[in-house]
């Protein structure tokens, strides 16, 4: 399984040794973990950072005057710096920590949607969104009289740019909230063009970068977007922490989402005033340990480098498309030109749940179902697909194991 995409900089076997879980046996077989798009595994560095914090310096942060509280505040706030650097944010105060992507998007729908947008304006999403980037806008629509528009996708699973552009004709669109990379099809949208068209019509753009952040170097200034949401657990970090980046001048205009400790400047019963961004949006005790773990995860991927990771994943994806494409009865869903390491497929005469269970029986972990994207499934007349997705620790050998396993499943069913 020792395939090195770029022998000088990327040694997948060395990387695999950083992930303790990869030596597990599953149902007696070597683990082949191809479910990273749902959530990635955690390197030793992340585990150690969290353990170290709990064993040597843990305390609540931000108002503590004692040594441990000060050290932990520093460690937590260092995560904000790391996230700002990762995304090339122009200011660390533009990084808001949330629970996950879903909360980041709900914060947007609530605080930007109800707080800044006006009744009668419209939000544009696409035909390949995760439920987390659909339902918050439906709640906004129903509560606040905002129209919801869906930019269609093509049969290849790409954003239909012409149709997208047409949605702005009446000038009502206030916000585009769109996935940067589909968690089902792997398609990457042409982000700069998406932004350019929206901005030309006076609309702001939020990307749901939950998938893209793992596969690409994200530079929010180069993208030109206004908000960018992602989630720590997919970037090799812990659960319980996500990020919303937003332009400072926009964040400053937005009312708070939740109220509580840490987000206030002063409180009287009559009236409270808010802390400056980002704290205005971070109510209550934050996910302190998770911030510390996320910092370690960001440092980990930065040390490897996105160029090397992206090249590795591109090679894996190419190999997987070639191998799966050759298996009789396997149909790959989505043929986007620009795509990341996520592949959905169906197998004739076998339901995707059976496929997943029978692969699992061989130690191969894939996901099956609607992948929290029911409208997208319907777009392709499907109820569900099986999905294999790759991380930095995925090897060409594992993809071969998937292909061989699938061939067995097909034969088992015929």
């Amino acid at each position, binding site marked *: 399984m020792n395939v090195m995409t770029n022998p000088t900089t990327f040694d997948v076997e060395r990387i695999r040794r950083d992930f303790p879980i990869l030596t597990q046996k599953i149902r007696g077989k070597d683990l082949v973990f191809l479910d990273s798009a749902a959530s990635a595994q955690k390197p030793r560095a992340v585990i150690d950072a969290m353990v170290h914090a709990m064993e040597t310096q843990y305390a609540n942060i931000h108002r503590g005057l004692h040594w441990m509280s000060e050290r932990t505040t520093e460690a937590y706030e260092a995560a904000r710096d790391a996230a700002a650097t990762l995304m090339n944010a122009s200011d660390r105060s533009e990084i808001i920590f949330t629970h996950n992507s879903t909360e980041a998007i709900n914060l947007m729908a609530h605080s930007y949607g109800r707080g800044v947008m006006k009744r009668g304006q419209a939000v544009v999403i696409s035909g390949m969104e995760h439920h987390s980037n659909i339902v918050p806008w439906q709640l906004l629509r129903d509560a606040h009289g905002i129209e919801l528009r869906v930019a269609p996708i093509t049969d290849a699973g790409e954003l239909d740019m012409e149709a997208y552009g047409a949605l702005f004709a009446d000038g009502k669109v206030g916000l585009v909230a769109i996935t940067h990379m589909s968690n089902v099809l792997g398609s990457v949208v042409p982000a700069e063009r998406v932004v350019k068209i929206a901005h030309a019509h006076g609309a702001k753009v939020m990307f749901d970068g939950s998938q893209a952040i793992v596969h690409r170097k994200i530079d929010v200034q180069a993208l030109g977007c206004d908000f960018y949401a992602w989630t720590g657990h997919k970037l090799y970090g812990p659960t319980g922490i996500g990020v919303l980046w937003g332009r400072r001048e926009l964040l400053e205009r937005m009312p708070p989402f939740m109220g509580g400790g840490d987000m206030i400047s002063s409180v009287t019963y009559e009236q409270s005033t808010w802390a400056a961004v980002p704290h205005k949006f971070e109510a209550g005790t934050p996910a302190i340990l998770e911030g510390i773990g996320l910092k370690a995860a960001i440092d980990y991927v930065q040390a490897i480098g996105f160029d090397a990771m992206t090249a590795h994943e591109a090679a894996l994806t190419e190999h997987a498309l070639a191998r799966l494409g050759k298996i009789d009865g396997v149909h790959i869903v989505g043929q986007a030109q620009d795509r990341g390491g996520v592949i959905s497929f169906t197998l004739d005469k076998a339901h*995707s749940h*059976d496929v997943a269970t029978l692969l699992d*029986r*061989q130690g191969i972990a894939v996901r099956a*179902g*609607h992948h929290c994207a029911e409208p997208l*499934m319907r777009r392709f007349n499907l*109820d*569900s697909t099986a999905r294999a997705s790759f991380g930095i620790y995925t090897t060409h050998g594992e993809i071969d194991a998937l292909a061989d396993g699938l061939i*067995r499943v097909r034969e088992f069913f015929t």
Partner: protein
Amino acid sequence: MTPSDNFDDLRDLYQEVILDHGRRPRHAVRLEDFDTTAKGDNPMCGDRVQVWVKFDSDTIGRVGFEARGCAISIASADLMAETVQHRTKADTRKLFESFREMARTGTCPACDAALDEPIERLKPLAGVHEYPSRVKCATLPWHALIAALNGAKEASSE
């Protein structure tokens, strides 16, 4: 990885009888003449089933179903249709409880001895208990059947 491959490792859940009923269900038919019908829906995985029941005096005369779902759910629906034939409503309900217990835990120690024979016929599905997320695939048709017996239109989600 060749036609001579033996599939032993895949058979703990997918026994031959399940593959067979999953592929060629005998009762996968919409009854035109029926007394009661109900739907079951598992939105989490997209499985959907409708069950029709025709009584024969005080026992179940015939069960037909239409299902969209995995091999487990179709095989389970088919085995169910086969097994409940000629049973009273009360027995069918008891059988459902026993089957559900077996699907969840692999055994049914507290099961009514009178149900030994039908439970034996459903045993091939017991392997599902090792795959907790698949238990609902096996029980969904039963939920629809019980809903139909109760005169409900839809199985309430678990």
